[in-house]
């Protein structure tokens, strides 16, 4: 939809407007999940400012949602570090196709890297051409505005409720169930899925208090073994 724009001189206002327009479809999803995120912050008994604090310090939706529960339970920092590392590991692959080169200003570049969330990657993957600094920054800033303001609306809404809604924290489980289903598109994913659940199940039996940490470690170790065993006929689609 935008391949011809790159050859024209950049019209700043039009580019910003177009960047915001590109952000809207994903924003329609981010805003309500932001509200749920804000609700959960209050539900877990955390102060309201944890919602914007997490969305500014971390700015990665799924990890933020997890961190609410982990921080409320005073989970050891090592578990928080490993969880963040493994959940956000996918970001390592976004650099391969993200058009960071169109952003020239060093500060703007830094923001663009910091704000390289799933939605930003997805939108540049779907519209690979025509990006320039103004448009990309506008899209990314709009994403953060949707997310932070959604969180604030959720916090406000939860504060207006007479008491916590019992069972609301299931939203987190539901979110990860849908994400797992989305990641599991073909039969090729089944071995990883089975290995992961076995590792977590084992960790839950052996060390119930740190099952998340140990389960993830076991899973990564199991994948390393799998890599060594299959190296000769290694994944050709990689």
């Amino acid at each position: 939809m935008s391949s011809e724009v790159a050859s024209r001189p950049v019209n700043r206002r039009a580019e910003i407007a177009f960047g915001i327009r590109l952000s809207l479809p994903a924003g329609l999803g981010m805003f309500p999940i932001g509200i749920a995120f804000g609700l959960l912050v209050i539900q877990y008994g955390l102060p309201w400012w944890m919602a914007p604090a997490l969305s500014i310090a971390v700015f990665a939706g799924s990890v933020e949602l997890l961190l609410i529960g982990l921080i409320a339970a005073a989970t050891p920092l090592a578990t928080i570090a490993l969880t963040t590392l493994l959940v956000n590991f996918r970001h390592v692959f976004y650099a391969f196709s993200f058009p960071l080169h169109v952003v020239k200003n060093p500060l703007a570049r830094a923001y663009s890297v910091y704000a390289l969330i799933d939605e930003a990657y997805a939108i540049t993957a779907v519209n690979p051409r025509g990006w320039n600094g103004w448009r990309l920054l506008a899209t990314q800033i709009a994403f953060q505005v949707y997310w932070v303001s959604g969180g604030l609306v959720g916090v406000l809404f939860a504060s207006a409720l007479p008491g916590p809604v019992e069972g609301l924290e299931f939203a987190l489980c539901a979110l990860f169930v849908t994400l797992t289903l989305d990641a599991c598109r073909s039969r090729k994913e089944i071995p990883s899925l089975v290995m992961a659940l076995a590792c977590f199940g084992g960790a839950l039996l052996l060390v119930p208090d740190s099952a998340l940490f140990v389960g993830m470690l076991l899973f990564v170790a199991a994948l390393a073994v799998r890599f060594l065993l299959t190296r000769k006929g290694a994944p050709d689609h990689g």
Partner: protein
Amino acid sequence: MVELDPWYVAGALAIAFAITLSLRALPFAVLKPLRKSRLVMAMGLWMPVGILAILAASTFVSTASVDWATVAKAVVAVAVTAAVHLWCGRRTLLSIGLGTLTFVALVNLL
């Protein structure tokens, strides 16, 4: 309200910030060797579904591990979430909304 040690919160935020930013920034600096690393590529292919499944299982345990009746309610809610997601066009918000509504209703009404 949970009693929070400000240093603990600051530490948690700083760690999550540093790790997330590094994961986003490092590949731009060391793109070429990473692109060739078969281990990294294999991990990128295999890890997401497993990590997400562990997170789903872990959040399930922390939500449901009250008693067996709650486990049963959570199983029903997971089934609703997955069924809506697979058969109503993978609309994440709809799936999460109906799944959560199911669980909230079961917990509060039964």
